[in-house]
């Protein structure tokens, strides 16, 4: 098993390098550079040129790249000219919000998917299954942002049950109970909106998996042993179909990444997605590229996680 893990991690390395190169190139292609933000019309062009030289902006690209990577390792993502602060610090402020949003969504995704998938798969072709399948049908066809808008419109504005923006009510003291509750309150609607749409693929996967396992030969063996139907379900069918779902965990994170951008925009939720959109609009590219790098690495780690979990739960991969 460890061999598989090590190999899987090794595959990751060139991916990360390639990703960083791509992002570096993108950053270079973007109009303006680290100095553009600091430009003061009063400064004489020669001085700027001097500064460029000093910052290594005139070096050949590969040297610039190496320097950039070095900085990355030291946690230096550059400066945001728009916010006038280090990118690392800026992202640090937002990452917590996105983390909580992601976590809440993930929990909701599984809370919805597991029971629905099981009901739909076990009692397939009943009215309950048809209802659930209908839900997944609609869920698949509904873009997250439209659903988010409608949810905000109905529950945020029309009923006024939830706050319509921000991550916490301003003026509350961090650490107090009220602060935490306010945080949760702000989190709930975006997370529910994202989860209700994001969960349908898991529901459908679980349903298909159960229907598939139901038709396997070893289920007949279990019945022939005299296992009652409930045991056949719990011991054989459910176990065998839930394990791959557990492994889906990492992919699930990856799937959420795109969704958070929309949701954070719609709910004015101050996370990394919103920061990304703001920085693009403000042409604050050092922030934007840093975020892409971060999300890319998150994706890589997510898929890595899934593959490793899968190799742990499935003895066919575990024991080679």
């Amino acid at each position: 098993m460890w061999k598989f893990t090590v190999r899987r991690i090794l595959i990751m390395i060139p991916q990360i390098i390639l990703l960083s190169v791509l992002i570096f190139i993108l950053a270079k292609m973007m109009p303006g550079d680290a100095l553009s933000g600091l430009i003061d019309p009063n400064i004489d062009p020669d001085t700027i040129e001097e500064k460029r030289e000093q910052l290594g902006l005139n070096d050949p690209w590969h040297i610039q790249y190496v320097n950039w990577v070095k900085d990355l390792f030291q946690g230096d993502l550059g400066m945001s000219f728009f916010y006038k602060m280090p990118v690392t610090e800026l992202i640090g402020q937002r990452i917590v919000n996105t983390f909580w949003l992601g976590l809440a969504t993930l929990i909701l995704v599984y809370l919805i998917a597991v029971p629905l998938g099981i009901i739909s798969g076990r009692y397939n072709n009943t009215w309950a299954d048809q209802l659930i399948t209908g839900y997944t049908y609609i869920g698949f066809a509904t873009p997250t942002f439209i659903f988010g808008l409608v949810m905000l419109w109905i529950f945020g504005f029309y009923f006024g049950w939830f706050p319509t923006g921000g991550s916490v009510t301003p003026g509350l003291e961090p650490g107090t109970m009220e602060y935490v509750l306010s945080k949760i309150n702000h989190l709930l609607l975006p997370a529910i909106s994202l989860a209700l749409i994001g969960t349908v693929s898991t529901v459908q996967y679980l349903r298909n998996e159960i229907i598939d396992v139901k038709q396997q030969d070893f289920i007949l063996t279990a019945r022939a042993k005299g296992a009652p139907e409930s045991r056949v379900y719990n011991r054989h069918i459910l176990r065998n179909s839930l394990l791959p779902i557990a492994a889906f965990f990492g992919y699930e994170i990856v799937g959420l990444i795109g969704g958070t951008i929309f949701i954070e925009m719609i709910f004015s939720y101050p996370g990394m997605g919103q920061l990304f959109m703001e920085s693009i609009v403000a042409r604050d590219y050092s922030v934007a590229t840093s975020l892409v790098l971060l999300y890319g690495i998150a994706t890589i780690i997510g898929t890595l996680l899934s593959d490793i979990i899968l190799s742990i739960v499935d003895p066919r991969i575990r024991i080679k």
Partner: protein
Amino acid sequence: MSKDVVIMSEQIEESHESPSGLKVLWREIIRDKLALSSLILLIVISIGVIIGSAILDYDEVTKVDLFNTHAPPSSENWLGTDYGGRDVFGQLIIGTRNSLAIGVLVTLMSGFIGILFGLIAGYFGGTIDNIFMRILDFFLILPFLMIVIIFVAIVPKYSIISFSLIMTAFLWMGTARLVRSKALQERELDYVNAAKTLGTSNLKIMLTHVLPNLSSIIIVNMTLSLAGNIGIESGLSFLGFGFPESTPSLGTLLSYATNPQTLEYRWWIWLPAAILILILMLSVRNVGEAFKRATDARQRRG
């Protein structure tokens, strides 16, 4: 597979029907009332918006009229006007046409690349497959939305063409992966070996033997991607990184809803577009799911 199913499927094989993928797909559509009505609805909408946008005066629709902004629905402007005083209904018609057109265009282009890539990787396997898969894996880890947005932001002389090319560049992987895995299965089948021993060239085997056997799953995949691509385009336009400002799309109308005032009080601007996107995506998916059932004998109805 349980014994019952084995016996059933043997019977299906014995039946005298043409295996032509298209016919099977068509029959499934006819049998499935939901899919059939979806298909009809799609055709009606498509024809409607094409004719509608031909009749509508494009300049009239996109003309800014500052004396008539945010007007509620009236006999003049059926769905009112936007912040620039432009007619929402007209934008809806043209926007639907644009969204549909770019959805189809991107689906076809990314489908073509995906099929080509997947077929080559799957059919030849081995080292070629390995290299191709590494490339594909890399594309898969890119945060799609962000990368597209950055490209849209930095591309000079941004146009519809460059927009669809950017989308295509990051949307071919799904088809490629599917085609590759099916091609890998197909090439192990003896009819491919037989063709080789009969002296048929690899290119010919790929195109005349393997590809036709993948046709139905490709159609299913492309139909479902079409639905997805319509959603992606409208999402990007919603964020302001889709169609250029001057070209209305369904997402553009939705993006007005980022203004809380519009979202809360002027539903007529964004809600029709939202509903239309839902209808389009649902209908396309209904058709796609019916195709899927037709290709998967286990799920075939009746």
